[in-house]
């Protein structure tokens, strides 16, 4: 027993020392949590996003119907105890399809944001850091993209590539990188004039080292906020492309496609289109609220 006590004391000392060494990080995390709590909307946003991710991850293990099982006898049933969100024109359970659809939407959102932010980050950093002709070339390229309405350009690319979820992701990624490039460029322009960047160069740091070790970490928070805000937009766009038939194809339970398929029945059977539509709205809203919250939390001025 004495031995156990001794071990506890030792453990206590260890955690004390850990807390001592990392006291600033701990303070920082506590303060971040405090800021997070303070903003109700960002809490709501985080709640929605976390719930969505959990549901999407657990979808195959939840006690649901088969999203693809046709059951024509039960077609167009209104919401009831058995089918919480009713059934569609082919008798499939809408709640099941919505939950399986969340996997598709989140996957599209995450992939698109990852690809486009990576492309935008690298091009933008180079543009801001090296300046001159490289900057000019990359920025004029982004101008070209900004000159078109995003969705129209995505539609054109998707139409050229042909329908399908992979092509949808590619099409949206192609049109959404310029904003990251602009943000990364602005950050790089600002940070590259900091004295510590000059100091790093004066001790012989290479361009790549300066860019990725000294400049990148300082602009990452802007990119993270933009990526979160973009998630909602990307999911909306993907749903839009699917709605007009350029994205996911039947029988995929993609939300936009579900809305599209249900629109013929909307006069008599409102739930077929409306409920997947609500899912899109809530998801986009959740990501936007989270993004706004993150922006406030990362804001240096608010942190002081």
């Amino acid at each position, binding site marked *: 027993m004495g031995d156990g006590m001794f071990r506890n004391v030792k453990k206590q000392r260890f955690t004390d020392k850990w807390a001592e060494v990392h006291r600033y990080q701990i303070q920082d995390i506590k303060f971040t949590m405090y800021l997070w709590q303070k903003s109700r909307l960002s809490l709501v946003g985080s709640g929605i996003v976390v719930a969505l991710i959990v549901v999407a991850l657990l979808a195959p293990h939840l006690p649901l119907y088969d999203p693809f099982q046709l059951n024509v006898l039960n077609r167009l049933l209104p919401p009831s105890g058995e089918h919480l969100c009713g059934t569609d024109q082919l008798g499939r359970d809408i709640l099941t399809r919505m939950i399986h659809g969340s996997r598709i939407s989140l996957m599209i959102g995450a992939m698109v944001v990852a690809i486009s932010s990576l492309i935008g980050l690298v091009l933008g950093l180079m543009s801001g850091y090296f300046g001159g002709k490289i900057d000019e070339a990359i920025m004029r390229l982004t101008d070209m993209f900004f000159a078109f309405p995003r969705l129209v350009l995505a539609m054109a690319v998707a139409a050229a590539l042909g329908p399908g979820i992979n092509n949808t992701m590619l099409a949206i990624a192609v049109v959404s990188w310029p904003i990251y490039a602009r943000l990364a460029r602005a950050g790089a322009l600002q940070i590259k004039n900091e004295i510590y960047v000059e100091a790093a160069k*004066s*001790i012989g740091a290479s361009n790549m080292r300066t860019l990725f070790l000294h400049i990148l*970490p*300082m602009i990452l928070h802007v990119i993270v906020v933009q990526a979160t805000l973009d998630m909602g937009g990307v999911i909306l766009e993907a749903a839009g492309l699917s709605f007009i038939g350029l994205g996911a194809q039947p029988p995929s339970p993609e939300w936009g496609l579900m809305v599209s398929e249900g629109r013929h029945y909307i006069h008599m059977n409102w739930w077929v289109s409306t409920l997947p539509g609500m899912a899109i709205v809530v998801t986009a809203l959740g990501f936007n609220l989270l993004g706004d919250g993150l922006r406030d939390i990362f804001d240096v001025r608010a942190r002081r």
Partner: protein
Amino acid sequence: MSEELLTVRNLVTHFYTYRGIVKALEGVDLTIGRREVVGLVGETGSGKSVTALSIMRLIEPPGKIISGEVIFDGKDLLKLSDEEIRSVRGKEISMIFQEPTLALNPVLTIGLQLQEAIETQDLRKEDAEKLATAMLEKVGLPDPERMFKNYPHELSGGMAQRAMIAMSLSMKPKLLIADEPTSSLDVTVQAQILDLMKKLVEEIGASVLYITHDLGVAAETCDKIAVMYTGYIVEFSDVLTMFENPLHPYTQGLLNAIPKLGYDLYTIGGEVPDLINPPSGCRFHPRCQEALDICSKVKPQITEVKKGHLVACHLFKY
């Protein structure tokens, strides 16, 4: 091996701004011998820092080094490739900055940055770490092991400057450029940092280009002094001569402008000229009380008037 470590000849650096071309450096001539501490003094905006950055070739667009030679240890730095100049930085010439807390990256630990300084010069990781801790100890930082894990904002200005010194001297450079290293520190810390720098520089046998606007500090630390005015060196000599027998009217003005108890403060009349449209001839002539006719027409070349005493002024041509 020649006696001179660094010879700067006719260095010209311009900045291309929307308002026009800022002629920041207009023919800087400077020599630094081995193990010599040369002070570069002058007003704000006289081009001291631009000289330092030009020597290291750290001038970024819109700035550009137009012409000149920077002979360091037998090679012209302005003719090296980007890769070659990078291996000179840190290893052979390194720099300390005015604001130590701004010269350290706020998101990286002191240890990481110090290690980085060493690692850029192709050392093994363990060696780099060992050397980094040893350097922190050498610059008199308490508890170097813990300092290794600290972030810059956890350090005071003096401690941060010690860390910077550790960084810049870790590769035993032959030349240390100190750009007002103590201007942002209070007087007691200033003295400590100066002592520390002196000690370490002597230990590794480096030369120093010490940039300051504080004549007192310059007198105390430097072997030789170069006085700079609007982009070129107006006077260059050893410390004693400079303070006892200054020749250039500008230097005389500067020395007179040191506040003395019981006297009114002496000021040099006029103001620092605009570097986009600098005065013709000698750039000091509009403010100079002894100006001759020739001063507004011909730019004086820096010439040796006595042994080791160089002046750029028409008054001392003959």
